[in-house]
């Protein structure tokens, strides 16, 4: 054929490979992808706007629900931002507990990602295995916080629960479990033939592209860009850890290519790093208070008197979570700006899809560990038909409905 006929392949918003709604439009020639286009915004919930109507304590739990997996990262960044603006000093012990919870979350997120990625390439056994292994850290988090997914551990100026006694023992046991299991896990994830066949030299993001497109997290590190908020920017207990550094494929003596295999390498090594950090924190945890001001209402009143800007950054499991909060002598912030790691990485998808095959689409898509819900968070909802219903109207409607039901009681 002299003139090549291409056709458009729509994938999404709902597709078995996608855990969340996002729409891709691919220009496809046979099995080869020529061009990719991304359309988002299917899960808008208006969190940034809603935040402006809540007080500082309420926002923590609202932000926790931006994403189920990063349910410590978002409140962490938010608390850091507010503490930065109001210049609240966090007690030393709280810093360590924050670090431990954050690292447990990273452990759980990376294992979850490994399972999802394995499922995308049709390796269901690995999916079940990693999720089975992940149960242990979920149980540990349940013991610490009382819930498997939404930990509600953080508050402005510290943490809400201490890690002592039985809880500390549970954490130590989890650390032991993972250090025992690590070598087997590493062997499976890095040396399995069929997995390597699917991931090597697929979805390449070069160093320059990662730098220019502001990629974050394991995606950037797999391209050799040593960008890790934990190592770059002082938060929590991370400055205390002398050996902490951003992990790149160089650490296993491999030249970074920026393909999916490198992203697996980075994540697998980070599992080990997380375990080591938790062990370090458990051994070196100082005593003392866990929160600067335990009374929530007092905190709200204290923050009412602040007029400042605050930036909070934290390395979530998927990359840099960054919040920018504007406080203006009010019970509620005037502005809350949220950036989830996926938001920075969306644009990195475009070069990754270059030259890919259709079979590579799901694994490339999941290789940045996307969290669409994190990125979509603006402010209105699509109503029935073509009418657009604003958040306020929608709420009014639902309030009416609720009142109607209540009257019927």
């Amino acid at each position, binding site marked *: 054929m002299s003139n090549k006929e291409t056709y458009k392949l729509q994938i999404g918003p709902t597709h078995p490979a996608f855990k969340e709604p996002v729409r891709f439009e691919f220009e496809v020639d046979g099995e080869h992808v020529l061009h990719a286009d991304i359309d988002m915004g299917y899960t808008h919930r208006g969190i940034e706007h809603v935040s402006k109507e*809540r*007080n500082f*304590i*309420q*926002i*923590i*739990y*609202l932000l*926790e*629900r931006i994403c189920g997996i990063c349910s410590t990262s978002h409140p962490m960044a938010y608390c850091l931002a507010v503490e930065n603006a109001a210049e609240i000093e966090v007690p030393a012990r709280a810093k360590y507990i924050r670090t431990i919870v954050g690292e447990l979350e990273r452990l759980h997120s990376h294992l979850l990602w490994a399972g999802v990625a394995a499922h995308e390439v049709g390796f269901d*056994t*690995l999916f*079940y*295995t990693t999720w*089975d292994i992940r*149960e242990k850290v979920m*149980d540990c988090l*349940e*013991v610490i*916080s*009382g*819930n498997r997914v*939404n930990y*509600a551990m953080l508050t402005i100026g510290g943490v*809400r*629960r201490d890690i002592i006694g*039985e809880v500390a023992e549970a954490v130590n046991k989890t650390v032991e479990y993972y250090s025992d299991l690590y070598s*087997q896990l590493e*062997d*499976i994830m890095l*040396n*399995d*033939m069929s997995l390597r066949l699917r991931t090597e030299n697929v979805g390449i993001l070069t160093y320059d592209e990662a730098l220019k497109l502001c990629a974050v997290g394991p995606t950037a590190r797999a391209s050799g860009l040593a960008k890790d908020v934990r190592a770059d920017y002082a938060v929590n207990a991370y400055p205390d850890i002398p050996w902490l550094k951003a992990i790149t494929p160089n650490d296993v003596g491999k030249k970074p290519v920026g393909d999916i295999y490198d992203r697996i390498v980075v994540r697998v090594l980070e599992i080990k790093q997380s375990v080591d950090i938790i062990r370090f924190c458990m051994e070196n945890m100082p005593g003392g208070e866990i929160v600067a001001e335990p*009374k*929530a*209402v007092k905190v*709200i009143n204290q923050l009412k008197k602040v007029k400042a800007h605050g930036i909070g950054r934290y390395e979530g499991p998927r990359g840099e979570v960054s919040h920018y909060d504007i406080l203006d002598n009010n019970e509620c912030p005037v502005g809350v700006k949220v950036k989830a790691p996926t938001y920075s990485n969306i644009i990195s998808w475009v070069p990754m899809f270059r030259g890919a095959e259709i079979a590579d689409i799901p694994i490339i898509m999941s290789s940045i560990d996307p969290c669409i819900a994190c990125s979509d968070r603006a402010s209105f909802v699509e109503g029935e038909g073509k009418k657009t219903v604003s958040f306020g109207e929608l709420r009014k409607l639902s309030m009416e409905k*609720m009142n109607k*039901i*209540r009257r019927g*009681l």
Partner: protein
Amino acid sequence: MLSTVSRIMQQFFGRRSTNVFPVKYAPESVIDALAGGDIHPPISMPEGYRGKLSYDFDKCIGCGMCLKVCPAKALEDYPIMDTEKNRPSKRIVFYRGKCTYCEECVKVCPVGAIKLNPDFMMANYEKYGDDQIEGIEKRREFEVKEGQ
């Protein structure tokens, strides 16, 4: 490759990780069928598990602190007349369907009238059904008394 196979074999001969849904919560028809067989007890919840919310109507002093901190606005101010002192007394109604289990109201309550139980089975067909609203029965009793 070898480690994958060894892990798979380990799983084949090892104990399976999944569990049958605890029979305690299954519909009655299923319980009857399984009564003679293998009944799995529910997995125990750790201490401090944040589950179903319960509210002690009599302990509540109506300070309204919980209203201030609840992120989901799952609590509603429901003032009722205190007949003994003849003045409106604030009592709270909780919509369990809206609750996010953050435990903030428990921490903030000065008299310990709110608790989170380890009960996690809360699925329901009705969003605002009677059993989804905590504190409504007392409120009803009160209304009936008032009516008389």
